[in-house]
């Protein structure tokens, strides 16, 4: 059984994801998107990067690669799927999750540690945390502003599908703690099944103790353990 880390042209966090997962004892391997998903599939990671140069919109091209039909099918069957950063953009562009990730309110690329509040701790991605716990994980994106129309946002909240919100160090959801202008400070959401999640921050960059100051992201990847 293996976790497939799907590599597109321009993905660049695929190795990081494999390293972080391997550190947790997960059998993970990089899969070139044209080669298709392995038969002994245990999970899927859509890693960060700049697939296809962010042409048109971040994630737009990769979302329409043939492998994504197989990823959606696997997601519907209950295979855990995690999209991180560009992988989150690919996930939303391909309809795995609602809304869109678009240009930061600052119009700048932002690379910095942020605080996230765990909005629910009863999902595979968050069971390592407590409800309302504040974790520190880095972001690195230019198009991470979560946009969604008002009705769809209300549905998302009503269905309890917000996983993480940007917050200050004390867990308060404020405009100042919102790095990119995301609707409702949303940093990560669930798909229709709670085995599908996308988030703009990078848990794989906050997992290995010898790499980052924080290892708070490890809990997200523990969904695959």
């Amino acid at each position, binding site marked *: 059984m293996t976790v497939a880390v799907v590599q597109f042209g321009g993905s660049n966090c695929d190795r990081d994801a494999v390293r972080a997962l391997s550190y947790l004892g997960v059998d993970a391997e990089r899969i070139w998107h044209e080669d298709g998903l392995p038969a002994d599939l245990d999970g899927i990671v859509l890693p960060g990067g700049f697939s296809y140069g962010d042409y048109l919109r971040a994630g737009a091209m990769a979302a329409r690669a043939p492998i994504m039909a197989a990823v959606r099918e696997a997601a519907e069957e209950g295979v855990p799927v995690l999209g991180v950063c560009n992988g989150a953009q690919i996930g939303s562009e391909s309809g795995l999750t609602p809304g*869109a990730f678009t240009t*930061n309110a600052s119009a700048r690329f932002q690379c910095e540690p942020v605080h996230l509040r765990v909005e629910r701790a009863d999902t595979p991605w968050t069971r390592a945390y407590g409800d309302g716990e504040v974790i520190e994980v880095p972001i690195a994106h230019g198009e991470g*502003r979560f*946009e969604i129309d008002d009705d769809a946002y209300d549905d998302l909240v009503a269905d309890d599908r917000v996983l993480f919100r940007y917050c200050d160090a004390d867990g308060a959801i404020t405009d100042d703690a919102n790095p990119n*202008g995301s609707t409702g400070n949303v940093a990560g959401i669930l798909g229709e099944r709670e085995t599908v999640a996308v988030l703009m921050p990078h848990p794989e960059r906050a997992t290995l103790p010898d790499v980052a100051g924080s290892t708070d992201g490890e809990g997200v990847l523990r969904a695959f353990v």
Partner: protein
Amino acid sequence: MTGYTATVTVRLKRGVLDPEAETTRRALERLGFELSGLRSADRFDIDLEAEDADEAEERAGEMAERLLANPTIHDYEVAVAEK
């Protein structure tokens, strides 16, 4: 079959923040221009062969639906002209 150019214009829905347009507006103002607003849009000129203008418009509309626009944040319009 006739040659057409279908022009697909994709713009952000009203109310969706456009930070790049805002930055561009401020840069124009720094250059001394006076303006009360600025919106940006992406335009795609698509050359295609079709039976008639309706078919050309329909196919270009499908391209917008499937790829060129993201319905969450974009509106689009299609205009067709014979080449």
